[in-house]
Protein backbone atom coordinates (compact mmCIF):
# COMPACT_ATOMS: atom_id res chain seq x y z
CA UNK A 1 0.00 0.00 0.00
CA UNK A 2 1.55 3.28 -1.12
CA UNK A 3 1.19 6.17 1.30
CA UNK A 4 3.81 8.53 0.01
CA UNK A 5 5.26 9.42 -3.37
CA UNK A 6 8.62 11.03 -3.90
CA UNK A 7 9.59 12.83 -7.08
CA UNK A 8 13.26 12.33 -7.76
CA UNK A 9 15.49 13.04 -10.71
CA UNK A 10 18.51 14.94 -11.96
CA UNK A 11 18.51 18.71 -11.55
CA UNK A 12 16.41 20.56 -14.13
CA UNK A 13 14.33 17.70 -15.48
CA UNK A 14 11.06 19.34 -14.49
CA UNK A 15 10.25 17.64 -11.20
CA UNK A 16 8.52 20.74 -9.88
CA UNK A 17 6.34 21.02 -12.99
CA UNK A 18 5.25 17.40 -12.59
CA UNK A 19 4.66 18.09 -8.89
CA UNK A 20 2.39 21.04 -9.66
CA UNK A 21 0.50 18.94 -12.18
CA UNK A 22 -0.01 16.06 -9.75
CA UNK A 23 -1.01 18.05 -6.69
CA UNK A 24 -2.30 21.38 -7.97
CA UNK A 25 0.18 23.06 -5.62
CA UNK A 26 2.01 25.85 -7.44
CA UNK A 27 5.76 25.86 -6.89
CA UNK A 28 8.40 27.88 -8.70
CA UNK A 29 10.04 26.00 -11.54
CA UNK A 30 12.68 27.33 -13.93
CA UNK A 31 15.09 26.19 -16.56
CA UNK A 32 18.25 25.89 -14.49
CA UNK A 33 19.58 23.20 -12.21
CA UNK A 34 18.84 23.91 -8.55
CA UNK A 35 15.59 25.87 -8.69
CA UNK A 36 14.12 23.74 -5.93
CA UNK A 37 16.07 24.01 -2.71
CA UNK A 38 13.20 23.38 -0.35
CA UNK A 39 10.92 20.40 0.01
CA UNK A 40 7.36 20.94 -1.22
CA UNK A 41 4.52 18.68 -0.19
CA UNK A 42 1.09 18.24 -1.66
CA UNK A 43 -1.63 15.65 -1.98
CA UNK A 44 -2.90 13.51 -4.80
CA UNK A 45 -6.30 11.83 -4.73
CA UNK A 46 -5.89 8.30 -6.05
CA UNK A 47 -9.19 6.44 -5.98
CA UNK A 48 -10.20 6.63 -2.34
CA UNK A 49 -6.75 7.31 -1.01
CA UNK A 50 -5.12 10.62 -0.38
CA UNK A 51 -1.43 10.21 -1.02
CA UNK A 52 1.25 12.65 0.03
CA UNK A 53 3.50 13.77 -2.83
CA UNK A 54 6.94 15.20 -2.06
CA UNK A 55 8.99 17.27 -4.52
CA UNK A 56 12.71 16.83 -3.85
CA UNK A 57 15.65 18.98 -4.96
CA UNK A 58 17.41 17.48 -7.98
CA UNK A 59 20.33 15.13 -7.52
CA UNK A 60 22.73 13.36 -9.88
CA UNK A 61 23.27 10.33 -7.71
CA UNK A 62 22.32 8.83 -4.38
CA UNK A 63 25.66 10.01 -2.98
CA UNK A 64 24.96 13.72 -2.39
CA UNK A 65 27.49 16.49 -3.05
CA UNK A 66 25.59 19.65 -2.11
CA UNK A 67 23.30 20.65 0.72
CA UNK A 68 20.21 20.48 -1.47
CA UNK A 69 21.16 16.99 -2.69
CA UNK A 70 21.83 15.91 0.88
CA UNK A 71 18.31 16.94 1.86
CA UNK A 72 16.85 15.00 -1.04
CA UNK A 73 18.70 11.78 -0.34
CA UNK A 74 18.23 11.82 3.43
CA UNK A 75 14.46 12.24 3.04
CA UNK A 76 14.30 9.18 0.81
CA UNK A 77 15.53 7.06 3.69
CA UNK A 78 13.13 8.45 6.26
CA UNK A 79 10.03 6.51 5.31
CA UNK A 80 9.50 2.72 5.19
CA UNK A 81 10.17 1.58 1.63
CA UNK A 82 7.18 -0.70 1.28
CA UNK A 83 4.85 2.28 1.90
CA UNK A 84 6.42 4.66 -0.58
CA UNK A 85 6.86 4.88 -4.31
CA UNK A 86 9.42 6.90 -6.22
CA UNK A 87 8.60 8.63 -9.48
CA UNK A 88 11.92 8.80 -11.26
CA UNK A 89 11.64 11.77 -13.57
CA UNK A 90 13.88 11.81 -16.61
CA UNK A 91 14.67 14.41 -19.22
CA UNK A 92 13.96 12.56 -22.45
CA UNK A 93 16.42 14.74 -24.35
CA UNK A 94 19.22 13.40 -22.19
CA UNK A 95 18.22 9.85 -21.44
CA UNK A 96 21.59 8.22 -20.83
CA UNK A 97 22.78 10.65 -18.15
CA UNK A 98 19.35 10.66 -16.49
CA UNK A 99 18.96 6.89 -16.33
CA UNK A 100 22.05 6.64 -14.18
CA UNK A 101 20.15 7.76 -11.08
CA UNK A 102 17.25 5.48 -12.00
CA UNK A 103 19.58 2.48 -12.05
CA UNK A 104 20.81 3.46 -8.59
CA UNK A 105 17.23 3.68 -7.35
CA UNK A 106 16.43 0.24 -8.75
CA UNK A 107 19.59 -1.23 -7.21
CA UNK A 108 18.63 0.25 -3.85
CA UNK A 109 15.26 -1.53 -4.01
CA UNK A 110 12.78 1.34 -4.20
CA UNK A 111 9.35 0.94 -5.81
CA UNK A 112 9.90 2.87 -9.00
CA UNK A 113 7.82 4.27 -11.81
CA UNK A 114 9.53 6.23 -14.58
CA UNK A 115 8.21 9.47 -16.04
CA UNK A 116 9.93 10.42 -19.28
CA UNK A 117 9.47 14.19 -19.25
CA UNK A 118 9.99 16.73 -22.07
CA UNK A 119 9.06 14.25 -24.76
CA UNK A 120 7.98 17.03 -27.09
CA UNK A 121 11.39 18.69 -26.90
CA UNK A 122 13.08 15.33 -27.45
CA UNK A 123 11.28 14.71 -30.73
CA UNK A 124 12.11 18.28 -31.81
CA UNK A 125 15.73 17.47 -31.28
CA UNK A 126 15.53 14.21 -33.18
CA UNK A 127 15.56 11.87 -30.18
CA UNK A 128 13.18 8.92 -30.40
CA UNK A 129 12.74 6.67 -27.42
CA UNK A 130 11.08 3.27 -27.44
CA UNK A 131 9.29 3.40 -24.09
CA UNK A 132 7.87 -0.15 -24.42
CA UNK A 133 11.35 -1.53 -24.86
CA UNK A 134 12.68 0.51 -21.95
CA UNK A 135 9.86 -0.83 -19.80
CA UNK A 136 10.77 -4.39 -20.76
CA UNK A 137 14.43 -3.90 -19.97
CA UNK A 138 14.01 -2.14 -16.63
CA UNK A 139 10.86 -4.06 -15.57
CA UNK A 140 9.13 -0.94 -14.18
CA UNK A 141 6.43 1.22 -15.82
CA UNK A 142 7.67 3.95 -18.19
CA UNK A 143 5.34 6.82 -19.08
CA UNK A 144 6.23 9.54 -21.53
CA UNK A 145 4.93 12.98 -20.69
CA UNK A 146 5.26 16.67 -21.26
CA UNK A 147 4.53 18.19 -17.88
CA UNK A 148 4.55 21.80 -19.07
CA UNK A 149 1.49 21.17 -21.24
CA UNK A 150 0.14 18.41 -19.00
CA UNK A 151 0.33 15.69 -21.64
CA UNK A 152 0.82 12.21 -20.23
CA UNK A 153 0.18 13.17 -16.60
CA UNK A 154 -3.15 11.32 -16.60
CA UNK A 155 -1.44 8.09 -17.64
CA UNK A 156 1.19 8.64 -15.00
CA UNK A 157 -1.50 8.86 -12.31
CA UNK A 158 -3.35 5.84 -13.73
CA UNK A 159 -0.28 3.68 -13.65
CA UNK A 160 1.05 4.85 -10.29
CA UNK A 161 -0.19 1.70 -8.49
CA UNK A 162 2.01 -0.32 -10.86
CA UNK A 163 5.19 1.15 -9.41
CA UNK A 164 7.30 -1.83 -8.53
CA UNK A 165 10.58 -3.09 -7.22
CA UNK A 166 12.83 -4.45 -9.94
CA UNK A 167 16.01 -5.25 -8.11
CA UNK A 168 19.26 -5.07 -10.02
CA UNK A 169 22.56 -6.26 -8.62
CA UNK A 170 24.55 -3.48 -6.99
CA UNK A 171 27.42 -2.45 -9.18
CA UNK A 172 30.25 0.02 -9.62
CA UNK A 173 30.15 3.37 -11.40
CA UNK A 174 31.96 2.12 -14.48
CA UNK A 175 29.82 -0.97 -14.71
CA UNK A 176 26.64 1.10 -14.43
CA UNK A 177 27.66 3.38 -17.29
CA UNK A 178 28.50 0.33 -19.39
CA UNK A 179 25.06 -1.16 -18.73
CA UNK A 180 23.52 2.17 -19.66
CA UNK A 181 25.38 2.24 -22.94
CA UNK A 182 23.83 -1.12 -23.81
CA UNK A 183 20.33 -0.02 -22.78
CA UNK A 184 20.55 3.21 -24.75
CA UNK A 185 21.58 1.35 -27.91
CA UNK A 186 18.36 -0.63 -27.71
CA UNK A 187 15.84 2.08 -26.87
CA UNK A 188 17.06 5.33 -28.35
CA UNK A 189 17.25 6.41 -31.96
CA UNK A 190 18.82 9.65 -32.99
CA UNK A 191 17.87 11.35 -36.22
CA UNK A 192 20.61 13.61 -37.40
CA UNK A 193 19.52 17.22 -37.54
CA UNK A 194 21.33 20.24 -38.82
CA UNK A 195 22.37 22.82 -36.32
CA UNK A 196 19.34 24.95 -35.58
CA UNK A 197 19.47 28.63 -34.71
CA UNK A 198 18.68 27.68 -31.14
CA UNK A 199 21.70 25.39 -30.95
CA UNK A 200 23.91 28.04 -32.50
CA UNK A 201 22.80 30.53 -29.84
CA UNK A 202 23.39 27.90 -27.15
CA UNK A 203 26.95 27.36 -28.33
CA UNK A 204 27.66 31.06 -28.79
CA UNK A 205 26.70 31.85 -25.21
CA UNK A 206 29.43 29.64 -23.72
CA UNK A 207 32.27 30.89 -25.96
CA UNK A 208 34.37 33.77 -24.69
CA UNK A 209 33.86 36.55 -27.21
CA UNK A 210 30.29 35.91 -28.31
CA UNK A 211 29.35 34.89 -24.75
CA UNK A 212 30.49 38.18 -23.21
CA UNK A 213 28.78 40.18 -25.93
CA UNK A 214 25.54 38.28 -25.41
CA UNK A 215 25.85 38.65 -21.64
CA UNK A 216 26.25 42.43 -21.83
CA UNK A 217 23.36 42.62 -24.26
CA UNK A 218 21.07 40.56 -22.05
CA UNK A 219 21.88 42.60 -18.92
CA UNK A 220 21.46 45.92 -20.73
CA UNK A 221 18.15 44.96 -22.31
CA UNK A 222 16.85 43.49 -19.04
CA UNK A 223 17.63 46.69 -17.18
CA UNK A 224 16.03 48.85 -19.85
CA UNK A 225 12.90 46.70 -19.96
CA UNK A 226 12.54 46.72 -16.17
CA UNK A 227 12.78 50.52 -16.18
CA UNK A 228 10.37 50.77 -19.10
CA UNK A 229 7.71 48.54 -17.56
CA UNK A 230 8.18 49.98 -14.07
CA UNK A 231 8.07 53.66 -15.06
CA UNK A 232 5.36 53.03 -17.62
CA UNK A 233 3.07 51.43 -15.06
CA UNK A 234 3.72 54.16 -12.49
CA UNK A 235 3.10 57.07 -14.84
CA UNK A 236 0.29 55.66 -16.93
CA UNK A 237 -1.59 53.36 -14.60
CA UNK A 238 -0.82 53.69 -10.90
CA UNK A 239 -0.45 57.44 -10.49
CA UNK A 240 -3.62 58.25 -12.46
CA UNK A 241 -5.60 55.71 -10.43
CA UNK A 242 -4.40 57.16 -7.15
CA UNK A 243 -4.79 60.81 -8.14
CA UNK A 244 -8.06 60.61 -10.05
CA UNK A 245 -9.96 57.90 -8.21
CA UNK A 246 -8.50 57.35 -4.79
CA UNK A 247 -7.64 60.93 -3.79
CA UNK A 248 -11.23 62.25 -3.87
CA UNK A 249 -12.31 59.41 -1.58
CA UNK A 250 -9.56 60.13 0.89
CA UNK A 251 -10.31 63.87 0.79
CA UNK A 252 -13.86 63.13 1.83
CA UNK A 253 -12.59 60.90 4.63
CA UNK A 254 -10.22 63.65 5.71
CA UNK A 255 -13.08 66.12 6.00
CA UNK A 256 -15.16 63.67 8.03
CA UNK A 257 -12.32 62.83 10.41
CA UNK A 258 -11.29 66.48 10.84
CA UNK A 259 -7.58 67.27 10.47
CA UNK A 260 -5.31 67.37 13.53
CA UNK A 261 -7.35 64.74 15.39
CA UNK A 262 -5.97 61.37 16.45
CA UNK A 263 -7.75 59.23 13.85
CA UNK A 264 -6.96 61.67 11.09
CA UNK A 265 -3.33 61.50 12.09
CA UNK A 266 -3.30 57.68 12.01
CA UNK A 267 -5.39 57.04 8.88
CA UNK A 268 -4.86 60.07 6.63
CA UNK A 269 -1.71 61.47 8.17
CA UNK A 270 -0.55 65.07 8.14
CA UNK A 271 -1.69 67.58 5.57
CA UNK A 272 1.21 69.02 3.59
CA UNK A 273 0.51 72.67 2.71
CA UNK A 274 -3.12 72.01 3.52
CA UNK A 275 -3.38 69.07 1.12
CA UNK A 276 -3.06 65.33 1.23
CA UNK A 277 0.29 64.30 -0.23
CA UNK A 278 0.57 60.57 -0.89
CA UNK A 279 4.33 60.69 -0.57
CA UNK A 280 4.55 62.69 2.63
CA UNK A 281 1.35 62.47 4.64
CA UNK A 282 2.35 59.15 6.15
CA UNK A 283 -1.11 57.79 6.90
CA UNK A 284 -2.21 54.15 6.93
CA UNK A 285 -4.63 54.85 4.08
CA UNK A 286 -2.51 57.35 2.15
CA UNK A 287 1.25 56.82 2.09
CA UNK A 288 1.17 53.11 2.96
CA UNK A 289 -0.93 51.95 -0.01
CA UNK A 290 0.75 54.51 -2.29
CA UNK A 291 4.23 53.16 -1.50
CA UNK A 292 3.21 49.56 -2.04
CA UNK A 293 0.94 49.87 -5.05
CA UNK A 294 2.18 52.92 -6.91
CA UNK A 295 5.90 52.95 -6.17
CA UNK A 296 6.97 49.38 -5.41
CA UNK A 297 4.53 46.99 -7.06
CA UNK A 298 5.18 48.23 -10.64
CA UNK A 299 8.88 47.49 -10.23
CA UNK A 300 8.24 44.16 -8.52
CA UNK A 301 6.11 43.18 -11.49
CA UNK A 302 8.70 44.42 -13.98
CA UNK A 303 11.58 42.69 -12.23
CA UNK A 304 9.86 39.34 -11.87
CA UNK A 305 8.68 39.42 -15.45
CA UNK A 306 12.25 39.72 -16.71
CA UNK A 307 13.69 37.33 -14.13
CA UNK A 308 11.06 34.72 -14.96
CA UNK A 309 11.77 34.97 -18.67
CA UNK A 310 15.54 34.63 -18.14
CA UNK A 311 15.02 31.71 -15.75
CA UNK A 312 12.71 29.79 -18.03
CA UNK A 313 14.64 30.39 -21.21
CA UNK A 314 17.69 28.94 -19.46
CA UNK A 315 20.04 31.90 -19.71
CA UNK A 316 21.08 32.19 -16.05
CA UNK A 317 23.61 29.33 -15.90
CA UNK A 318 25.35 30.93 -18.90
CA UNK A 319 25.80 34.08 -16.87
CA UNK A 320 27.50 31.89 -14.27
CA UNK A 321 30.19 30.97 -16.80
CA UNK A 322 30.86 34.61 -17.66
CA UNK A 323 31.14 35.66 -14.02
CA UNK A 324 33.08 32.67 -12.75
CA UNK A 325 36.44 34.45 -12.76
CA UNK A 326 35.15 37.49 -10.89
CA UNK A 327 33.28 35.47 -8.30
CA UNK A 328 36.35 33.32 -7.67
CA UNK A 329 38.02 36.39 -6.21
CA UNK A 330 35.19 36.55 -3.68
CA UNK A 331 35.55 32.92 -2.63
CA UNK A 332 32.54 31.86 -4.66
CA UNK A 333 32.11 30.35 -8.07
CA UNK A 334 30.05 31.48 -11.01
CA UNK A 335 26.87 29.76 -9.96
CA UNK A 336 26.62 32.07 -6.94
CA UNK A 337 25.19 34.60 -9.38
CA UNK A 338 21.85 32.79 -9.12
CA UNK A 339 21.29 33.52 -5.40
CA UNK A 340 22.50 37.09 -6.02
CA UNK A 341 20.00 37.64 -8.85
CA UNK A 342 17.16 36.15 -6.83
CA UNK A 343 18.30 38.39 -3.96
CA UNK A 344 17.82 41.43 -6.16
CA UNK A 345 14.13 40.56 -6.12
CA UNK A 346 13.86 39.70 -2.46
CA UNK A 347 16.71 38.68 -0.16
CA UNK A 348 14.79 35.71 1.24
CA UNK A 349 14.69 33.45 -1.84
CA UNK A 350 18.22 34.65 -2.57
CA UNK A 351 19.56 33.42 0.74
CA UNK A 352 17.56 30.20 0.55
CA UNK A 353 19.04 29.43 -2.85
CA UNK A 354 22.61 29.64 -1.51
CA UNK A 355 21.89 25.98 -0.78
CA UNK A 356 22.92 25.23 -4.35
CA UNK A 357 26.48 26.07 -3.26
CA UNK A 358 28.53 23.15 -2.02
CA UNK A 359 30.46 24.37 1.03
CA UNK A 360 29.45 26.08 4.25
CA UNK A 361 32.08 28.73 3.61
CA UNK A 362 30.56 29.68 0.27
CA UNK A 363 27.10 29.80 1.78
CA UNK A 364 28.32 32.14 4.53
CA UNK A 365 30.04 34.47 2.08
CA UNK A 366 27.12 34.49 -0.33
CA UNK A 367 24.46 35.06 2.35
CA UNK A 368 26.46 37.85 3.99
CA UNK A 369 27.10 39.57 0.66
CA UNK A 370 23.44 39.31 -0.29
CA UNK A 371 22.14 40.73 2.97
CA UNK A 372 24.62 43.64 2.89
CA UNK A 373 25.29 44.47 -0.73
CA UNK A 374 22.19 43.38 -2.63
CA UNK A 375 19.15 45.68 -2.29
CA UNK A 376 15.78 44.03 -2.79
CA UNK A 377 13.47 45.30 -5.51
CA UNK A 378 11.10 47.23 -3.17
CA UNK A 379 14.08 49.19 -1.84
CA UNK A 380 15.47 49.72 -5.34
CA UNK A 381 12.12 51.07 -6.49
CA UNK A 382 12.23 53.55 -3.63
CA UNK A 383 15.80 54.53 -4.45
CA UNK A 384 14.68 55.28 -8.01
CA UNK A 385 11.84 57.36 -6.62
CA UNK A 386 13.92 59.23 -4.03
CA UNK A 387 17.04 59.96 -6.08
CA UNK A 388 15.78 59.61 -9.63
CA UNK A 389 14.23 63.05 -9.60
CA UNK A 390 17.64 64.65 -9.02
CA UNK A 391 19.59 62.71 -11.64
CA UNK A 392 20.37 59.21 -12.82
CA UNK A 393 23.90 59.92 -11.65
CA UNK A 394 22.88 59.56 -7.99
CA UNK A 395 20.89 56.39 -8.60
CA UNK A 396 23.86 54.90 -10.43
CA UNK A 397 26.06 56.12 -7.59
CA UNK A 398 24.20 54.09 -4.98
CA UNK A 399 24.57 50.98 -7.15
CA UNK A 400 28.24 51.71 -7.67
CA UNK A 401 28.82 52.09 -3.92
CA UNK A 402 26.94 48.85 -3.18
CA UNK A 403 28.77 46.97 -5.93
CA UNK A 404 32.13 48.18 -4.58
CA UNK A 405 31.19 47.07 -1.07
CA UNK A 406 30.15 43.72 -2.45
CA UNK A 407 33.51 43.30 -4.21
CA UNK A 408 35.74 44.60 -1.41
CA UNK A 409 33.91 42.71 1.31
CA UNK A 410 33.96 39.53 -0.77
CA UNK A 411 37.70 39.76 -1.33
CA UNK A 412 38.29 40.39 2.39
CA UNK A 413 36.06 37.47 3.42
CA UNK A 414 37.77 35.20 0.91
CA UNK A 415 41.22 36.16 2.26
CA UNK A 416 40.31 35.85 5.94
CA UNK A 417 37.90 32.92 6.20
CA UNK A 418 39.33 29.47 6.68
CA UNK A 419 38.65 26.64 4.27
CA UNK A 420 38.46 26.65 0.53
CA UNK A 421 35.71 27.05 -2.00
CA UNK A 422 35.02 24.36 -4.57
CA UNK A 423 35.03 25.07 -8.27
CA UNK A 424 32.26 25.58 -10.76
CA UNK A 425 30.71 22.35 -11.93
CA UNK A 426 27.28 22.80 -13.43
CA UNK A 427 25.18 21.58 -16.23
CA UNK A 428 24.21 24.19 -18.81
CA UNK A 429 20.60 23.57 -19.82
CA UNK A 430 19.44 23.92 -23.41
CA UNK A 431 17.39 27.02 -24.25
CA UNK A 432 13.69 26.44 -23.97
CA UNK A 433 10.88 28.68 -25.03
CA UNK A 434 8.44 28.67 -22.10
CA UNK A 435 4.74 28.67 -23.03
CA UNK A 436 3.23 32.07 -22.21
CA UNK A 437 0.63 30.55 -19.90
CA UNK A 438 3.38 28.95 -17.82
CA UNK A 439 5.29 32.22 -17.59
CA UNK A 440 2.17 34.16 -16.68
CA UNK A 441 1.29 31.70 -13.95
CA UNK A 442 4.75 31.98 -12.45
CA UNK A 443 4.74 35.79 -12.47
CA UNK A 444 1.23 35.82 -11.01
CA UNK A 445 2.34 33.41 -8.28
CA UNK A 446 5.25 35.65 -7.32
CA UNK A 447 3.22 38.86 -7.37
CA UNK A 448 0.53 37.25 -5.26
CA UNK A 449 3.20 36.17 -2.81
CA UNK A 450 4.53 39.71 -2.67
CA UNK A 451 1.14 41.28 -2.08
CA UNK A 452 0.08 38.84 0.61
CA UNK A 453 3.37 39.05 2.46
CA UNK A 454 4.19 42.72 2.06
CA UNK A 455 0.93 44.63 2.28
CA UNK A 456 -0.20 43.54 5.77
CA UNK A 457 3.25 44.29 7.18
CA UNK A 458 3.34 47.68 5.48
CA UNK A 459 -0.08 48.70 6.76
CA UNK A 460 0.65 47.44 10.28
CA UNK A 461 4.10 49.05 10.16
CA UNK A 462 2.77 52.48 9.24
CA UNK A 463 0.06 52.15 11.89
CA UNK A 464 2.60 51.43 14.62
CA UNK A 465 4.91 54.20 13.42
CA UNK A 466 2.03 56.68 13.51
CA UNK A 467 1.09 55.68 17.03
CA UNK A 468 4.68 56.00 18.21
CA UNK A 469 5.06 59.35 16.46
CA UNK A 470 1.81 60.56 18.02
CA UNK A 471 3.00 59.54 21.46
CA UNK A 472 6.44 61.09 20.71
CA UNK A 473 8.14 57.81 21.64
CA UNK A 474 10.85 58.16 19.03
CA UNK A 475 12.54 61.21 20.50
CA UNK A 476 14.30 59.15 23.13
CA UNK A 477 15.74 56.69 20.61
CA UNK A 478 16.84 59.31 18.12
CA UNK A 479 18.62 61.23 20.87
CA UNK A 480 20.64 58.16 21.84
CA UNK A 481 21.79 57.53 18.28
CA UNK A 482 22.25 61.18 17.42
CA UNK A 483 26.08 61.13 17.78
CA UNK A 484 26.38 58.38 15.15
CA UNK A 485 23.60 59.48 12.82
CA UNK A 486 24.36 63.16 12.98
CA UNK A 487 28.03 63.13 13.97
CA UNK A 488 29.30 60.44 11.62
CA UNK A 489 26.77 60.27 8.81
CA UNK A 490 25.73 63.92 8.74
CA UNK A 491 22.03 63.05 8.82
CA UNK A 492 19.33 64.76 10.90
CA UNK A 493 18.49 62.69 13.95
CA UNK A 494 14.97 61.99 12.66
CA UNK A 495 16.46 59.59 10.07
CA UNK A 496 17.23 57.24 12.97
CA UNK A 497 13.57 56.28 12.92
CA UNK A 498 13.60 55.55 9.21
CA UNK A 499 16.76 53.46 9.50
CA UNK A 500 15.24 51.54 12.41
CA UNK A 501 12.05 50.92 10.44
CA UNK A 502 14.29 49.30 7.82
CA UNK A 503 14.31 46.31 10.08
CA UNK A 504 10.58 45.88 9.45
CA UNK A 505 10.41 46.78 5.77
CA UNK A 506 12.85 48.62 3.56
CA UNK A 507 10.29 50.31 1.31
CA UNK A 508 8.40 51.82 4.24
CA UNK A 509 11.70 52.93 5.73
CA UNK A 510 12.65 54.71 2.53
CA UNK A 511 9.14 56.18 2.45
CA UNK A 512 9.77 57.64 5.92
CA UNK A 513 12.62 59.64 4.43
CA UNK A 514 10.31 61.48 2.04
CA UNK A 515 8.75 63.98 4.46
CA UNK A 516 12.08 64.81 6.15
CA UNK A 517 13.21 67.29 3.50
CA UNK A 518 16.69 65.81 3.19
CA UNK A 519 19.35 67.15 0.83
CA UNK A 520 20.53 64.97 -2.07
CA UNK A 521 23.64 64.04 -0.17
CA UNK A 522 21.64 63.03 2.88
CA UNK A 523 19.22 61.03 0.74
CA UNK A 524 22.12 59.29 -0.97
CA UNK A 525 23.73 58.36 2.35
CA UNK A 526 20.54 57.19 4.01
CA UNK A 527 19.44 55.15 0.99
CA UNK A 528 22.83 53.45 0.86
CA UNK A 529 22.75 52.79 4.59
CA UNK A 530 19.26 51.33 4.30
CA UNK A 531 20.57 48.88 1.73
CA UNK A 532 23.58 47.90 3.83
CA UNK A 533 21.98 47.87 7.27
CA UNK A 534 19.97 45.14 8.92
CA UNK A 535 18.06 43.09 6.43
CA UNK A 536 14.36 43.16 7.15
CA UNK A 537 13.22 40.88 9.93
CA UNK A 538 11.92 38.17 7.60
CA UNK A 539 15.34 37.92 5.95
CA UNK A 540 16.95 37.88 9.38
CA UNK A 541 14.91 34.83 10.39
CA UNK A 542 15.93 33.02 7.20
CA UNK A 543 19.59 33.94 7.78
CA UNK A 544 19.35 32.48 11.27
CA UNK A 545 17.80 29.29 9.94
CA UNK A 546 20.44 28.90 7.23
CA UNK A 547 23.57 30.00 9.09
CA UNK A 548 22.90 29.29 12.78
CA UNK A 549 23.46 31.72 15.67
CA UNK A 550 27.23 31.88 15.54
CA UNK A 551 27.50 32.76 11.88
CA UNK A 552 24.52 35.08 12.08
CA UNK A 553 26.26 37.13 14.78
CA UNK A 554 29.44 37.13 12.71
CA UNK A 555 27.50 38.27 9.66
CA UNK A 556 25.71 40.97 11.67
CA UNK A 557 28.97 42.34 13.07
CA UNK A 558 30.39 42.54 9.55
CA UNK A 559 27.25 44.41 8.53
CA UNK A 560 27.49 46.95 11.38
CA UNK A 561 31.17 47.64 10.70
CA UNK A 562 30.51 48.01 6.96
CA UNK A 563 27.58 50.35 7.58
CA UNK A 564 29.57 52.57 9.95
CA UNK A 565 32.58 52.70 7.65
CA UNK A 566 30.62 53.39 4.47
CA UNK A 567 28.33 55.99 6.05
CA UNK A 568 31.28 57.89 7.50
CA UNK A 569 33.34 57.65 4.33
CA UNK A 570 30.50 58.88 2.17
CA UNK A 571 29.83 61.78 4.49
CA UNK A 572 33.37 63.02 5.06
CA UNK A 573 35.21 61.91 1.94
CA UNK A 574 33.34 60.77 -1.12
CA UNK A 575 30.37 63.13 -1.11
CA UNK A 576 32.16 65.91 0.71
CA UNK A 577 31.75 68.56 -1.93
CA UNK A 578 28.05 67.91 -2.60
Amino acid at each position, binding site marked *: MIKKIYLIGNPNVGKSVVFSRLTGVQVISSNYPGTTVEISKGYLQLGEDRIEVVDLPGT*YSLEPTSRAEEVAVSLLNEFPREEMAVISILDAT*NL*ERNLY*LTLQLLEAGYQVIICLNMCDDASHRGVNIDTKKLEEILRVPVISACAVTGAGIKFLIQRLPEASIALRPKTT*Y*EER*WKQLGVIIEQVQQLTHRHHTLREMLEDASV*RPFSGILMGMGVIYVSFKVVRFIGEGLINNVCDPIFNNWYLPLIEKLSAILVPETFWHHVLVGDLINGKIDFKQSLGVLTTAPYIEFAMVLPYVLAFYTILSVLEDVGYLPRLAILL*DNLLHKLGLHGYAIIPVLLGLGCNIPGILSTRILESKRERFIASTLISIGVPCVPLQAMIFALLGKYSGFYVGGVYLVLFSIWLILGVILNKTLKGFSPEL*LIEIPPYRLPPLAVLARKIYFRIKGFIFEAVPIVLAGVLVINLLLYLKMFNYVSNIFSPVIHGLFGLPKETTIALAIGFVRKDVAAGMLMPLGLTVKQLFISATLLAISFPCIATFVVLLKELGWKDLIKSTLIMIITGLAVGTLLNFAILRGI
Partner: protein
Amino acid sequence: MKIKQKGRIAQIEGGQILRDRLMSMGIYLGKEITKVGGFALRGPTSIKSGRSVIALGHGTAEKILVELHD
Protein backbone atom coordinates in the same frame (compact mmCIF):
# COMPACT_ATOMS: atom_id res chain seq x y z
CA MET B 1 42.23 20.97 -26.32
CA LYS B 2 40.76 23.56 -28.61
CA ILE B 3 37.17 24.66 -29.01
CA LYS B 4 35.17 22.25 -31.20
CA GLN B 5 37.82 19.54 -30.78
CA LYS B 6 36.74 16.04 -29.82
CA GLY B 7 38.50 13.51 -27.65
CA ARG B 8 38.24 10.56 -25.33
CA ILE B 9 38.80 10.93 -21.60
CA ALA B 10 42.05 9.12 -20.79
CA GLN B 11 42.52 9.98 -17.16
CA ILE B 12 40.83 11.93 -14.37
CA GLU B 13 43.11 13.17 -11.64
CA GLY B 14 41.96 14.41 -8.28
CA GLY B 15 40.17 12.97 -5.30
CA GLN B 16 37.48 10.36 -5.13
CA ILE B 17 34.76 12.92 -4.33
CA LEU B 18 35.43 14.92 -7.48
CA ARG B 19 35.68 11.76 -9.56
CA ASP B 20 32.41 10.45 -8.15
CA ARG B 21 30.66 13.70 -8.85
CA LEU B 22 31.95 13.92 -12.42
CA MET B 23 31.04 10.29 -12.87
CA SER B 24 27.45 10.84 -11.78
CA MET B 25 27.20 13.70 -14.26
CA GLY B 26 28.38 11.48 -17.07
CA ILE B 27 32.07 12.39 -17.26
CA TYR B 28 34.09 9.21 -16.88
CA LEU B 29 37.02 7.29 -18.30
CA GLY B 30 36.63 6.46 -21.96
CA LYS B 31 33.78 8.92 -22.53
CA GLU B 32 33.80 10.93 -25.75
CA ILE B 33 33.62 14.66 -25.15
CA THR B 34 33.71 17.82 -27.24
CA LYS B 35 35.02 21.11 -25.97
CA VAL B 36 32.47 23.83 -26.66
CA GLY B 37 33.87 26.83 -24.83
CA GLY B 38 36.82 28.04 -22.79
CA PHE B 39 37.64 31.33 -21.09
CA ALA B 40 41.09 32.86 -20.72
CA LEU B 41 42.66 33.84 -17.38
CA ARG B 42 41.87 30.51 -15.73
CA GLY B 43 38.20 30.86 -16.56
CA PRO B 44 35.77 28.00 -16.91
CA THR B 45 35.69 25.46 -19.71
CA SER B 46 32.51 24.01 -21.18
CA ILE B 47 32.34 20.53 -22.58
CA LYS B 48 29.68 18.49 -24.26
CA SER B 49 29.37 14.97 -22.95
CA GLY B 50 26.64 12.86 -24.46
CA ARG B 51 23.74 15.25 -24.78
CA SER B 52 24.61 17.54 -21.88
CA VAL B 53 26.79 20.62 -21.78
CA ILE B 54 28.74 20.95 -18.56
CA ALA B 55 30.74 23.94 -17.35
CA LEU B 56 33.83 23.16 -15.30
CA GLY B 57 36.06 25.45 -13.27
CA HIS B 58 39.58 25.79 -14.63
CA GLY B 59 41.15 23.60 -11.94
CA THR B 60 38.67 20.83 -12.54
CA ALA B 61 39.09 21.01 -16.29
CA GLU B 62 42.88 20.67 -15.87
CA LYS B 63 42.39 17.39 -14.05
CA ILE B 64 40.61 15.78 -16.98
CA LEU B 65 43.15 14.44 -19.47
CA VAL B 66 41.85 13.83 -22.93
CA GLU B 67 43.19 11.77 -25.80
CA LEU B 68 42.54 13.86 -28.90
CA HIS B 69 41.17 12.54 -32.14
CA ASP B 70 42.90 13.92 -35.19
